[in-house]
Structures are given as structure tokens and as C-alpha cells.
């Protein structure tokens, strides 16, 4: 049982490039989330989904997009990457929007 799997683990982007951070879970959990974690700060919610076909904005959605075509996958798309998007990104899943299970993160640098 792998839980929540994120790829890639590290990525360096140039300003203006785009990329997709992949997240997949094998726990059949309805809720999925994308957070970013800046140094010394708490997790900030980017987008979340309460089930396949449903997504909602979180606290810091600007510059990102998501889709949830299946229960398992919740990719995060960055269009026109900016230095302010340098951060560590965590995907999480939960059966009930309570106990969140996190992936191991993607460290992204935009230079």
C-alpha cells in the first residue's frame, strides 16, 4: 500500500515554463489536497477536491490549476512559472476531510 505518491521529487524550472506535479493515491479516499510549504511557514492550501470531477480553490490558488478526473489522481498544473512559486508542494488525501495523509513532497525551484 503506497499511500500518496508524488512525482517528481525535485524540479528546477525557468521563469515562464510550465509543468505538472503528479499526485496519485491508492487508498480510495475522496478528499485530495494540494499545499505549498514555504520555509518556516505553515502549509497553505492551493486547491482541493471532495471527489472525482469536483475541485475548489484554497487560500493561494493563483498561478495554479488542477483537475480530478479519477479518484486516484489529482495533478497540479503550473502555467508561466514565477520565482514566487519556488516552494515545497505536498499532496494529501483523506477519507473524511479530517485525518490527512501526505505524500513526500515535490521541491520546486523557479529561476
Amino acid at each position, binding site marked *: 500500500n503506497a499511500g500518496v505518491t508524488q512525482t517528481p521529487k525535485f524540479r528546477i524550472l525557468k521563469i515562464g515554463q510550465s509543468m505538472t506535479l503528479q499526485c496519485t493515491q491508492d487508498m480510495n479516499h475522496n478528499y485530495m489536497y494540494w499545499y505549498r510549504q514555504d520555509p*518556516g*511557514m505553515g*502549509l497553505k492550501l492551493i486547491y*482541493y477536491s471532495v471527489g472525482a470531477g469536483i475541485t*475548489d480553490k484554497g487560500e493561494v490558488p493563483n498561478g495554479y490549476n488542477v483537475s480530478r478526473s479519477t479518484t486516484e489522481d489529482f495533478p497540479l498544473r503550473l502555467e508561466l512559472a514565477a520565482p514566487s512559486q519556488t516552494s515545497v508542494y505536498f499532496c494529501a488525501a483523506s477519507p473524511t*476531510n*479530517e485525518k*490527512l495523509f501526505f505524500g513526500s513532497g515535490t521541491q520546486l525551484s523557479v529561476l
Partner: protein
Amino acid sequence: GESVGLHLPTLSVQEGDNSIINCAYSNSASDYFIWYKQESGKGPQFIIDIRSNMDKRQGQRVTVLLNKTVKHLSLQIAATQPGDSAVYFCAEFGSSSASKIIFGSGTRLSIRP
């Protein structure tokens, strides 16, 4: 305790001693709380949770205390071990909405041999 900014508060504890990590939460309507452990380069790992109808909950070597009067949460780790070195942060859940989950910035626990 929790803080916002680049410098996490650090708690240094002698191996074998007990550790107490504190969290001041913000929303008096929050009714569910989780403590997470985050080791360097890894994702947050669930440690223990507590609901607002309880004031204490115990797990294996860990105890969470909740004081709703002063909106304070603490995590006690008994007989601290080197493997306990990590950043610990609390999460408060104020409603059924995912957007209402608030994460603290964390406390770094370091263990002295």
C-alpha cells in the same frame, strides 16, 4: 509554541527526557485537532488527534492535551529518542470545509545525546 516567519522555535531536549511542544490555535470554533511530525525532506506524518469533547488523549509514548479555555494544545513525548528529531506542528479543523484547516508553522525538536 507556534510562530510565523523564517525562524522556527526550537526545543532542545536531552535523550530520555520528556518533551512538551505547544500550539496556540486561533479559531474557538475548531473542534478537531491533529499533531503532525515532519522529518527533514519528508511529508508530514500523522501522530495523534483529539476532538474538542476531550481534554486528553494518549497514544504510544505521546499524549495530547487540549485546553479550550485558552485555545491551547500540547504534545507530550515521553522518553524522547533520537528518532523523534523533527518539526512538529498542529492542525486545527474549524468546520467540514477543507479550506478551514489551519496548520501551524511548527516547532523543531532536537535531541541532545
